[in-house]
């Protein structure tokens, strides 16, 4: 049979833009190497270097057993300004963001406390003592990240995720990438979570011998958490609204999540999380194909005080929202603002593509 079907590309739009062609030509003409290479060799070299570091560290007695006090910080992670990461960090009444030397970041919600258990050239181990923290881990680095909360341990490669610890439970929600959650209260001892999934488990194994069941909070299957109705009433605290919106979003109920987030932004504009709520709201509206509402939410996010780590994301999503709305002039202006503020931004290529610019 030699019948030639209609090529599928006839059903596709042309993905080649003048801007993209020009950008590649510039690199060819100057014979400059591509900017985004993530070479296997580099990764393997990094892994080899990490192994060597471990070996050298052990040989020289630099590395103590897990849990020991961090040694002299040869190769240890530092704060972005070069200073040493405190061994214990507590946020007060406001959110606290730690920007680290490898471009990773940790954001503590108000009232949270984090302890650094070990920080070396190849390990960065923390423990969330209370509250909630969002971790954004730069992928491909030489360090093995882990976060402990009670008896639960989250192991990370390169990802963005949130760990929340209450007196009785630990909740892990993955926004990007993959993590492994380990602990005696995790079904089977270990669960792998991918983006969009969440897991809620008991913080510690029940001590009572009459309670053999591991954790009543364990979800029965690897589905997004939150089958619960996440109902919120008028007058709810920002905490409740934020938690409810998170559960609704992770369970796929985007419209209800958007309504909850909109309430949070309207009723708790003074809350430090209002800006983050507005940003999330903007993203949800884009997914719901409601670009006008997305524009309003993202503008609101910019007016409120966004954490610096999220400013770029907000600026990029605003470009997309304007583009989807068909307001090309505003999209180009927003793109120009994005490029001016983030000349080496991670979303530069997408922003250029959305606006067909150079």
């Amino acid at each position: 049979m030699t019948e030639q079907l209609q090529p599928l590309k006839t059903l596709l739009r042309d993905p080649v833009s003048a801007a993209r062609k020009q950008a590649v030509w510039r690199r060819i003409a100057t014979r400059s190497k591509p900017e985004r290479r993530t070479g296997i060799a580099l990764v393997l070299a990094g892994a080899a270097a990490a192994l060597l570091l471990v070996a050298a560290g052990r040989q020289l007695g630099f590395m103590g057993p897990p849990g020991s006090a961090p040694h002299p910080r040869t190769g240890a992670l530092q704060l972005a300004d070069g200073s040493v990461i405190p061994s214990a960090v507590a946020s007060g009444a406001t959110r606290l963001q730690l920007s680290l030397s490898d471009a990773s970041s940790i954001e503590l919600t108000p009232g949270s406390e984090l302890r650094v258990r070990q920080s070396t050239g190849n390990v960065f181990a923390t423990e969330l003592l209370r509250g909630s923290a969002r971790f954004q881990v730069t992928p491909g680095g030489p360090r093995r990240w882990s976060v402990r909360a009670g008896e639960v341990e989250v192991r990370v490669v390169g990802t963005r995720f949130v760990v929340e610890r209450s007196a009785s439970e630990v909740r892990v929600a993955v926004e990007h990438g993959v993590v492994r959650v380990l602990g005696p209260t995790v079904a089977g001892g270990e669960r792998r979570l991918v983006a969009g999934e969440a897991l809620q488990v008991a913080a510690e194994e029940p001590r009572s011998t009459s309670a053999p069941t591991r954790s009543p909070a364990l979800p029965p299957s690897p589905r997004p958490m939150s089958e619960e109705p996440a109902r919120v009433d008028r007058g709810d605290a920002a905490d409740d609204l934020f938690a409810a919106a998170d559960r609704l979003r992770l369970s796929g109920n985007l419209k209800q999540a958007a309504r909850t987030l909109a309430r949070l932004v309207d009723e708790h504009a003074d809350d430090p999380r209002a800006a983050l709520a507005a940003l999330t709201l903007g993203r949800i509206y884009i997914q719901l194909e409601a670009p006008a509402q997305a524009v309003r939410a993202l503008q609101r996010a910019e007016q409120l005080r966004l954490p610096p780590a999220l400013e770029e994301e907000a600026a990029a999503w605003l470009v997309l929202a304007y583009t989807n709305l068909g307001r090309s002039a505003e999209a180009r202006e927003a793109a120009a603002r994005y490029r001016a503020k983030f000349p080496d931004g991670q979303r530069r290529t997408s922003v250029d593509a959305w606006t067909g610019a150079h």
Partner: protein
Amino acid sequence: MGRAMSSHVTIAMPMNAGTRQASPGAIQAPAASSRPESDLVARLRSGDRAAEEGLYREHVDAVMGMAIRLLGRTCDAEDVVHDSFVTAFEHIGQLRDASSFRAWLLRVTVRHAHRRFRRRRLLQRLGFDSGQDDATLAQLAAPGLSSDAIAELAKIDRVLAELPASQRSAWLLRRVEGLELAEVAAACGASISAVKRRIAAAQARVDHHLGLAVDDD
């Protein structure tokens, strides 16, 4: 496309093609057959690097479009386009027939794309791939395409993600790019019978997931 099999929602990432304009100094679309290709190749062989731009203009649309569709990720595709042209320009002496530059270039591009894809898969297995696919078939769906058709494209994307790289490339070149079998074989550096087997194997997986029975080569 056949029957709709699902109702997946795909977020549109419009390129706003209607408003796209080339800026001053940008590379313009090539004038139709403004200069014989073999002439440009001959000039390049003689060391005239200005001929590079002519060849780039002449072939970049085909090369970049194919690379994006093969890889499903624009940043990877841009790197592949870069590498392919640089390879072609720097090894132009290896091209025996100056009039077959296009086929040779596409072969180089497929080889680079194939290599890139396998590297990405390895990085994914190691947990080091942080990139996002932004040009899958479903994401590239033309404006006006029905949601059913887009849902089927998304299904094909999922099948392609699981295929061996050699089957994936051959199927994409044949079914998406519409190349003749001989061209697919040349681009993949394999025999016609080998690529026919790869395409058939990939097609069987696609048909199975779409619930369709489609004649094959």
